């Protein structure tokens, strides 16, 4: 019998749900009630489970806490896990992403923050070091802020020394030397909100994901545009044909199988609701050549958006797919999106979900 943990971060707290079959769920009382939870990382490497949570109080600021006992107790480094060096003159506003690295780099965790910054921890998320080359990048002055804030919202570690980052607004940046240098990688991604031809950077890429089998293949949900790159981000082509809209925030890649991705389309920039007011996930099994609409068990009357981190997959077989709405509803699929059941309802706005099969 395996247990799956689903962490649900909302505008007003964190809820933990557990299930033996990923169809019926037990929901915890709230953790960090009245505190925003925009990021959660579940680290199951090494046979232990560590929950890392980026919490943010409207009054008392952001911090990272962690739990090694599934939320029974929480620990917070006295002097803070993420703090800008004094010479930057900057202060962390929000922790958008907590991403454990691969199994062969135990203890390494990446964070993406607002203001736009990427951080690396080697002690399981207890202390992070600012990636200075990206902080000092000459493009910084021209990076903008999406509606949610200027943030590095996606950190996607790859094989070797490659890491891809996506920021709003700045687009995709890649390092192939472990963070020593970063290059924009947005060729083929539009930026319709800027005059003239698409620039080298400045795109509002909403989310990126890496193919599990072909690591040089990436997928991007853009601020209008759904794209795939087959060359590690050097160039991107549209894979939006077959979707009801090319707008949305979510991009999920299958953790084991090549070419399978999920998106959750919204109508448009100016109409951020599910098409026809019906929530649906769309899955491609051929790297975006074709798409299938999946909505069994999802509400047929839904006018809330699914935010960029309010969707995730687990690593089970078949893979579980999870989505949460700004209306506080959370749904789980135990069969790769073919059908969903409701995990929770009437929660505050769901900002992030993360799921893992517990070791």
């Amino acid at each position, binding site marked *: 019998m395996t247990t799956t943990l689903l962490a649900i971060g909302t505008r007003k707290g964190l809820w933990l749900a557990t299930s033996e079959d990923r169809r019926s769920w037990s929901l915890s009382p709230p953790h960090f009630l*009245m505190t925003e939870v925009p990021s959660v990382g579940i680290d199951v490497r090494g046979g232990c489970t560590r929950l890392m949570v980026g919490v943010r*109080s*409207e*009054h*008392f600021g952001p911090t990272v806490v962690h739990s090694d006992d599934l939320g029974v107790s929480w620990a917070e480094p006295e*002097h803070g896990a993420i703090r*800008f060096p004094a010479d930057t003159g900057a202060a962390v506003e929000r922790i958008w992403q907590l991403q454990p690295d691969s199994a062969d780099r135990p203890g390494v965790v990446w964070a993406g923050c607002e203001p736009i910054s990427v951080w690396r921890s080697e002690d399981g998320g207890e202390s992070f070091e600012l990636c200075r080359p990206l902080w000092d990048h000459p493009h910084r002055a021209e990076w903008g802020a999406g509606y949610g804030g200027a943030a590095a919202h996606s950190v996607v570690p790859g094989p070797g020394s490659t890491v891809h980052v996506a920021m709003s607004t700045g687009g995709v940046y890649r390092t192939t030397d472990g963070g020593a240098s970063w290059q924009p990688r947005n060729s083929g991604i539009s930026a319709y909100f800027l005059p003239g031809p698409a620039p080298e950077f400045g795109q509002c890429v909403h989310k990126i994901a890496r193919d599990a089998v072909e690591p040089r293949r990436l997928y991007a949900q853009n601020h209008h545009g759904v794209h795939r790159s087959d060359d590690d981000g050097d160039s991107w082509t549209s894979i939006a044909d077959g979707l009801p809209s090319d707008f949305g925030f979510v991009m999920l890649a299958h953790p084991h199988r090549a070419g399978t991705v999920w998106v959750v389309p919204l109508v448009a920039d100016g109409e951020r609701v599910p098409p026809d007011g019906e929530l649906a996930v769309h899955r491609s099994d051929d790297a975006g050549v074709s798409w299938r609409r999946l909505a069994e068990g999802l509400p047929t009357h839904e006018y809330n958006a699914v935010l960029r981190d309010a969707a995730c997959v687990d690593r089970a077989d078949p893979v579980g797919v999870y989505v949460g709405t700004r209306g506080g509803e959370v749904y789980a699929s135990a069969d790769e999106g073919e059908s969903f059941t409701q995990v929770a309802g009437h929660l505050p706005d769901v900002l992030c979900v993360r799921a893992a099969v517990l070791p």
Partner: protein
Amino acid sequence: MTVQVLLPRLLSDCTGGRTSMSLDLPAAATVCALLDAIAVEHPVFDRRVRDETGALRRHVNVYVDGEEVRRLAGLRTPVPSGAEVMVVQSVAGG
């Protein structure tokens, strides 16, 4: 000199459960020095009220004898002997 400090109940988990304390400070101390003194024993409390640049968080207010320090000299506001200093969250949130 001694000053009285009132702390927000919401942060009592960062101050060992205390919602007030008496502090002995050097003469001519400032609000910044007062917060520095609290930070020695309660570093998490300090991070809750000041960010890593040392600035008071936007939705935290500090009053010295009833006067909000942003209307005075900010964290450089003097704290006189016998003063009552109140740290409190502002009206914010939804």
